[in-house]
């Protein structure tokens, strides 16, 4: 058997790898602190946040406020932007030195890039892109819930003998904790012992913008191919309802909506109170992204469209006609009452 570098008997503690951009913690990192707190309490062990980077702002303090007992901070100018190998080395060394039992990362592009490499370096198991986490406190085993085959199959994955038990977790699954500014925790600045050989990949340019975060939207108006590139009415309705626009992969592929607004297996999993699906056929790849909505309305001209199996209120009609009436009636009602 390929053994991990340390075993269950030596392992203790729940770690969360914290991602940040310009000193601001990513929302998935906050979500993991919330969930990590639960796991650490169940295991009766400390929750440690791991921050690697430069110019981290108030991130360490924020991690404490959101549940960390301890924050390990490795700060160095050369770590300002993420690259795989230096980050892998830093986390690998810390893990070998302190032997965490559980190590959680966000399933973001960089979180998954790091986790995949780190897991092999540590010779341990990694459950990727989890949609749920539970712990068995007796056996001290983490089980990660993952969906496969386009969302149709759910499996639980365990890592019984290798440590740390690693998992990447999909953004938007767990709730963000309310920060408690009175919480106490230790912030430990650790030296960065960097190896020049790790710096062989260079980031030449980088462009990030504040993305719409559909995982937190209360109401979503979602469009598919049936919208034929005309989002005016959908946007009008979204404006009236204070909703976010989302859509299918087709809508994103055709450039009607930005990629960050794509819902589904390869997009975001939303959990709004209400989602209105317009001109969407209802492929399982899409519906896994709306399964957590409290209420689903679907408008589709095709009475046989699978989306109706995933909807509370089904309208077999032209989306433009129905959207126009919805917008008109809402605006009209407001004009009367307002």
């Amino acid at each position, binding site marked *: 058997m*390929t053994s991990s570098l340390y075993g269950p008997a030596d392992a203790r503690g729940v770690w969360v790898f914290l991602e940040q951009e310009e000193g601001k913690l*990513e929302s998935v990192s906050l979500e993991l602190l919330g969930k990590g707190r639960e796991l650490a309490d169940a295991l009766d062990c400390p929750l440690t946040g791991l921050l690697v980077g430069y110019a981290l702002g108030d991130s360490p303090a924020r991690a404490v406020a959101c549940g960390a007992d301890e924050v390990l901070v490795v700060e160095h100018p050369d770590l300002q932007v993420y690259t795989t190998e230096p980050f892998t080395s830093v986390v690998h060394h810390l893990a070998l030195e302190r032997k965490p039992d559980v190590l959680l990362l966000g399933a973001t592009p960089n979180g998954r890039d790091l986790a995949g490499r780190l897991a092999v370096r540590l010779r341990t198991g990694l459950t990727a892109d989890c949609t749920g986490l539970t712990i068995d406190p007796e056996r001290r085993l983490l089980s990660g819930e993952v969906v496969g085959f386009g969302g149709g199959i759910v499996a639980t994955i365990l890592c019984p003998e290798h440590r740390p038990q690693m998992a990447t977790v999909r953004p938007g699954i767990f709730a963000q904790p309310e920060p408690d500014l009175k919480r106490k925790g230790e912030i430990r600045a650790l030296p960065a012992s960097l190896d020049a050989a790790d710096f062989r990949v260079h980031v030449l340019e980088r462009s990030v913008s504040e993305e719409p975060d559909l995982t937190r939207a209360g109401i979503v108006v979602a469009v598919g191919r049936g919208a034929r590139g005309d989002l005016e009415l959908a946007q009008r309705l979204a404006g009236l309802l204070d909703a976010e626009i989302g859509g299918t992969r087709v809508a994103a592929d055709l450039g009607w909506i930005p990629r960050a607004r794509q819902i589904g297996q390869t997009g975001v999993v939303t959990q709004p109170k209400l989602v209105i699906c317009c001109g969407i056929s209802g492929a399982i790849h899409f519906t896994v992204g709306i399964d957590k909505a409290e209420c689903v309305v679907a408008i589709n001209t095709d009475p046989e469209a699978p989306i109706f199996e995933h909807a509370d209120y089904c309208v077999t009609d032209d989306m433009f006609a129905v959207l126009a009436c919805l917008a008109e009636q809402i605006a009209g009602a407001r004009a009367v009452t307002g």
Partner: protein
Amino acid sequence: MSEMHTIVCMKVVPMPEEVRVNQETMTLDRANARSIFNPPDMNALEMALQLKQAHGGSISVLSMGPPFFERYLRLALCMGADRAFLLSDRAFGGADTLGTSRTLAAAIEKIGRYELVLCGEESSDGATAQVPPGIAEWLGTPQVTYAIELEVDYWNRRLRARREIKGGHELLLAPLPAVVSVKTGVNEPRFLDWTLRPWAEGQDLVTVWSAEDLGVDLEEVGVKGSATIVGGVGQSASRERRREFITGAPEDEARQILERIGQYLSER
């Protein structure tokens, strides 16, 4: 020596809609499902073919799986790959990403010189996106994940890659050889060239290697070389919905929808 060699890792997976959970054994029943190339791996192959058009050189396709994968590898040859390697051995079965990446890396080393290893973004049947970084770690090469554009500077032995990151993208410069996973959907995979069919049936084009051929430690591959186990599987329970059909003229439909969703609309 002086031509670019790209290795493309491709997996054959069951068609998602045909996989069922056997409720008694709680295992996946994929025996009755038809198979296809993992769609993201077609994007990786297409990327390799485009690089070959620009730089010349050759493409090897590499796959770990049961003997029937061979049929599929010959289809990759019809798309323009030059040769294929199939890693097939009972000892490789049941591997998680640790065991899979170990096996693929061992084969890549045995194949020999290469500039690029291209992978798909993720496989549709379970493990997701962890194999490419795993291969890179075993090989000790740089990695680029979620690549959307790739430019190879063969003579200076480096590549420029644009990759997706949260909320945007970045441009990387990395030395060759490197392992790259290609973002799903970045290109339109080409059709098979059926005129290549007779050539693609050539015996010597597909090499099949066992664990012994690879010379890997049997403890490091397959189930034994894996760290994770499947605790259980189930058909994902789609949430029960009301499925109430609303009919009438558009304005009646709109009115009825509003009556039903009123509770979700905040006052403004």
